[in-house]
C-alpha cells in the first residue's frame, strides 16, 4: 500500500562490531513473478543475544528468517542484498548468497540452525527422535568417533531437559507431547553448537505452561552456548519475555528496531504503537481493540474503558458468587444470579444454565460435574489448556455433542441433548462460532449465501427479508453490505471471522458460543474482534460463552471466569476475583506462566 516505509529508529547494535555473527543488509526477496516481498531489510544478530522479529502474518518475517539460511520457499527467490555470517573460529565471513549447494548444506544445521513453528509437522514421524538428532551430527561429521556422537545426542537431550537414555531416544515423535516434541527440535538445533539460531514461532502452538518451559529452555540454551538468536513471532508478550532487541516488520519493511524496553515502552512508529495497543494484558490496564487497524468503528471509544470499570463493579456485587464457591456450588450461584435478576427481569430462571454436565468416553472422563450460569449481556470465559474439555463442553451446550449426562437449560427449559431434537427456537437461541475462520466458511459460497443458511434452516421470512437480515448482520460486525457477494477466499482472516460471527448473529440468538475464535488471528485482529464482541454485548444484550486458552484476554472480555482443568471447573467467579485470589493451584500456575507484559 504505502511506498517504501522508513525505519523510524535504528539500533546502535547494528554498527559493525566484533560481537556480530550474522548481518543482513538491504535484503530483497521476490516472488517468481518478480513482486517484491521484502523491500530491503537490515538487521544484525550478536552473540548471546536474541533479536525478536515481530510482525503479522504475511509481513515477511519467516521469509526473512529463512533467507538467512539461504532457503527460499516454493515461489520465492533471492532478489538482492547480502547475508553475511561470521562463524566461530574463522577469520573471514561467509556470504550466504555466494555459496553453492554443498557449502550451503554444510552451513545449515551446523553453523546456523532452524527451530520450526510446528514440531508435530517438522519432525519426521517415521524416524525415532534420537535418530533425528543423530542425523544432524552424522551429516556434519561431528567429533571424531561414533562414541562421541552417541554421547552428544544424550548430552543435548539432557540439556533441553529431556531424559537422554536409550529408551527415550528410541521413541517415535507421536509418543511425545507437543512441548517435548519442540524440545527435540531445540536439541536438534543445538546439537552442532551453532553460531546462529532462527526460531520461527516455536511456541505458537503450545499452551501457556508448556510455552513458558520451552521459552526457559531456549533462553538458557542461548546463553549457555553463546548463540545469536532470531526469534520470529507475532506475540509481543513473548518478545518481551525472551529477546534483548526487537525489530518490527510491516509488509516487508523493518519499521522500528531497538532494545526491547525502549521499543515496547516507547514505540515511535505508528504501527508499533498500534500493535502495542492490541496486546491483551492480564492486568487489564488498557482496552484493546480501540485503535486497531481493522476496527472500523466510530470513535465513541473514549467511553470504552468503562467496560473494564463496570467489570469491577459487577465483580463487587457478584462477589458472593465467587467467594468460596470454587465451582461446585451451583445452588449458591443460581440463587444469587436469581436475586440479581429478580428485580429487573420477568423470568426468574437464568438465561443459560449448565447443571451437572458430565461426559466420559470409556474410562476417560472428559467432563465431570460442570455447573455454570450465564445471564443476558454477560460474558463467561471458559479457560483451559488443550485437552481440558473446554471445546467438548461448548459443543454439549450447543447440542453438537449429545453424549453427555446432566442438563443444559435455556431460560429454565431443559434442552434436548442433540440439536436435531431441540425446537427451532432453542436452536436459534444458541449459536456457535468456530475456531478457524479458514475452514468454517464454505469457500464455494459467497458470504451472503453462507449467512442465509441459518435463516433458511429456521424457515423464517421471505428471500428479501432474509437478504435484509444478512445485510444487517454484516453491518453489525462492521463488514458492510458490500461483502454480501464476496467469497471467503477474498477475505482476510479477521474479515472471515467477522463473517462467521455475522452468521451466528443473523438469527438474533441470545447466547453465542465462541470456541477459540481469536486464536488463529493476529493480535491486532484479535483486538478488533474483542472490541466487536464488546459492542455486540451492549447493543444486543448478547450472552457470550468465550472459550479460550489465552488467560490474558480475560479482563478484556469476560465478567466471569471459569477455569477448566481435566474436565472439572476448578475456579469459577467474577474475573477480577478469580485473577486476584485464585483458589486453585492450577489457576495460580496458569497466571504465573503468562509472559509478563
Amino acid at each position, binding site marked *: 500500500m504505502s511506498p517504501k516505509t522508513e525505519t523510524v529508529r535504528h539500533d546502535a547494535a547494528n554498527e559493525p562490531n566484533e560481537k556480530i555473527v550474522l548481518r543482513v543488509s538491504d535484503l530483497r526477496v521476490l516472488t517468481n513473478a518478480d513482486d517484491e516481498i521484502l523491500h530491503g531489510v537490515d538487521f544484525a544478530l550478536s552473540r548471546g543475544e536474541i533479536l525478536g522479529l515481530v510482525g503479522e502474518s504475511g509481513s515477511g518475517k519467516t521469509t526473512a528468517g*529463512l533467507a538467512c539460511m539461504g532457503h527460499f520457499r516454493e515461489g520465492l527467490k533471492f532478489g538482492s542484498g547480502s547475508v553475511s555470517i561470521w562463524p566461530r573460529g574463522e577469520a573471514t565471513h561467509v556470504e550466504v548468497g555466494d555459496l553453492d549447494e554443498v557449502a550451503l548444506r554444510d552451513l545449515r544445521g551446523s553453523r546456523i540452525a*532452524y527451530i520450526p513453528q510446528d514440531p508435530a509437522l517438522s519432525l519426521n*514421524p517415521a524416524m525415532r527422535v534420537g535418530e533425528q538428532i543423530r542425523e544432524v551430527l552424522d551429516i556434519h561429521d561431528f567429533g571424531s568417533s561414533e562414541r562421541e556422537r552417541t554421547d552428544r545426542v544424550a548430552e543435548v537431550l539432557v540439556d533441553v531437559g529431556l531424559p537422554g537414555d536409550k529408551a527415550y531416544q528410541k521413541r*517415535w515423535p507421536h509418543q511425545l507431547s507437543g512441548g517435548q516434541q519442540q524440545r527435540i527440535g531445540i536439541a536438534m538445533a543445538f546439537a552442532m553448537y551453532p553460531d546462529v539460531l532462527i526460531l520461527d514461532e516455536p511456541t505458537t502452538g503450545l499452551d501457556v505452561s508448556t510455552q513458558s518451559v520451552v521459552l526457559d529452555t531456549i533462553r538458557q540454551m542461548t546463553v549457555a552456548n553463546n548463540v545469536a538468536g532470531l526469534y520470529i513471532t507475532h506475540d509481543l508478550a513473548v518478545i518481551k519475555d525472551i529477546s534483548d532487541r526487537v525489530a518490527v516488520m510491516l509488509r516487508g519493511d523493518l519499521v522500528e528496531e531497538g532494545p526491547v524496553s525502549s521499543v515496547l515502552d516507547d514505540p515511535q512508529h505508528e504501527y508499533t504503537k498500534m500493535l502495542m495497543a492490541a496486546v491483551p494484558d492480564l492486568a487489564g490496564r488498557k482496552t484493546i481493540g480501540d485503535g486497531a487497524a481493522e476496527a472500523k468503528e466510530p470513535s465513541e471509544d473514549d467511553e470504552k474503558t468503562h467496560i473494564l470499570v463496570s467489570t469491577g463493579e459487577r465483580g463487587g456485587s457478584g462477589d458472593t458468587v465467587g467467594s468460596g464457591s470454587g465451582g461446585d456450588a451451583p445452588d449458591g450461584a443460581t440463587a444469587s444470579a436469581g436475586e440479581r435478576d429478580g428485580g429487573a427481569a420477568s423470568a426468574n430462571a437464568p438465561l443459560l444454565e449448565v447443571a451437572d454436565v458430565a461426559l466420559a468416553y470409556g474410562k476417560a472422563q472428559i467432563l465431570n460435574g460442570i455447573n455454570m450460569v450465564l445471564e443476558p449481556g454477560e460474558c463467561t470465559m471458559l479457560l483451559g489448556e488443550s485437552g481440558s474439555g473446554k471445546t467438548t463442553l461448548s459443543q454439549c451446550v450447543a447440542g453438537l455433542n449429545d453424549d453427555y449426562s446432566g442438563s443444559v437449560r435455556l431460560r429454565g427449559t431443559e434442552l434436548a441433548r442433540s440439536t436435531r431434537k431441540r425446537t427451532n427456537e432453542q436452536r436459534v437461541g444458541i449459536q456457535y462460532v468456530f475456531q478457524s475462520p479458514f475452514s468454517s466458511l464454505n469457500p464455494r459460497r459467497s458470504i451472503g449465501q453462507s449467512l442465509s443458511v441459518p435463516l433458511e434452516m429456521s424457515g423464517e421470512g421471505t428471500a428479501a427479508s432474509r437478504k435484509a437480515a444478512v445485510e444487517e448482520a454484516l453491518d453489525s460486525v462492521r463488514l458492510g453490505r458490500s461483502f454480501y457477494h464476496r467469497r471467503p477466499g477474498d477475505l482476510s482472516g479477521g474479515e472471515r471471522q467477522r463473517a462467521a460471527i455475522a452468521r451466528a448473529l443473523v438469527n438474533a440468538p441470545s447466547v453465542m458460543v465462541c470456541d477459540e475464535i481469536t486464536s488463529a488471528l493476529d493480535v491486532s485482529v484479535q483486538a478488533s474482534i474483542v472490541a466487536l464482541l464488546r459492542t455486540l454485548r451492549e447493543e444486543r444484550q448478547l450472552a457470550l460463552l468465550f472459550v479460550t486458552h489465552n488467560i490474558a484476554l480475560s479482563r478484556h472480555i469476560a465478567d466471569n471466569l471459569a477455569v477448566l482443568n481435566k474436565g472439572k471447573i476448578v475456579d469459577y467467579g467474577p474475573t477480577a476475583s478469580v485473577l486476584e485470589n485464585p483458589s486453585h493451584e492450577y489457576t495460580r500456575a496458569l497466571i504465573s506462566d503468562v509472559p509478563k507484559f
Partner: protein
Amino acid sequence: MFGKVIGKRLLFSAFILIAVSLLVFGATLLLPGDAARAILGQQATPERIAALNEQLGLDQPAWQRYFTWLGGLFVGDFGTSSATGGSVGALLGDRVGASFILMGLAAIISVPLGIGLGVFQALHRGKRRDQAMTGLSLVLAAMPEFVIGIGLIAIFATSVFQILPAVTLAPPGEPVWNRPEQLILPTLTLILVVTPYIVRMMRATMIEVLDSGFVEMARLKGVPEKRVIMRHAVPHALGPVAQVVAIQLAWLAGGVVVVEFLFRYPGLGQALIDAVTYRDVQVVQAISMLVAAVYVVVNLAADVVGILTNPKLRSAA
C-alpha cells in the same frame, strides 16, 4: 506388538479365504448341467450316470462334498479333473508356474519402475517432462490390456519389426523359460498396464510429502538432497502407494487371463478358459481359489508395508 498386528491380519485373511471357498463352491453348485452327463455324452444310460456319480462322489450331500474338497485344499489335493480324469494338481502345476513367472516378472519390473518414475515426476513437477509423462501415463492407463497387447504385436512382431514372436512357440510340456524371447511381449504388456497407475499415485503422494514440514526441516538441517528424498520423503509416500500396488498386482492375477489368451501363453488363464468350456468344475474351483489367495496375499503385503512405514500404526494397534 508388530507380530500381534500381523497375526491378527493373517487370521483375518484365513477367514476371507474360507468365505471365498464357500462362495466358489456354492457358485459351482448353481452351474447348470450335469458333470456325469457332460463326460458320458447324450447317449449315456441312467445306470452308467449313477455309477459315475457315485465314483465322483456326486451322490453325497453338498455340505459333505464341500468339506471333502476343503480338506483336500489343505493338503494340496485339488481333486480330480472331471474332463481329463487326471489330478487337478498335476494338470495345473506347470501352468501355475508359467503364469507366476509372467506375473512375477511384471511385478518386479513395474513396481520399482513406477515408484522411480513417480518420484522423478514429483521432483520435476510442473516442468515439461512432468507434463509429458503425465499425459503418456494417462493414455496408457486408459487403454485396455488387449489393445496394448495387439499394439505391441503390431509393432514388434508383425507389421513394423519382426524381431519378437507374436505367440508362444513352446510346445506343450516344454517350460516357457526355455525360450525367454517369447516372454518379452506378454510381460511388457502387463508392465504397461500396471505401471501408469503406480506412477500417478506415487507422483501425487510424493508431491504432498515434499511440501511437508519435515522435508523442509531436513533440508534446513543440511541433509543432502539425495538423503532427503530417500530417507525422509519416499518412505512416507510408500504407505499409500502400497495399496495401489496391491490392487494392481491382484489385478495381474485376473488380468493375466486376457493377456495369456492373446499370446497363446500356456498359463492359468488358458487353463481357466479351457476348464469353463469343458465344464471342468474342479479346475475352475482350484483356479478361483488361487486367484483369491493372490488377492489376499498381496493385500496383506500392502498392509505390512503400510505398517512398516508408519510407526503410529505399529504402536497404536
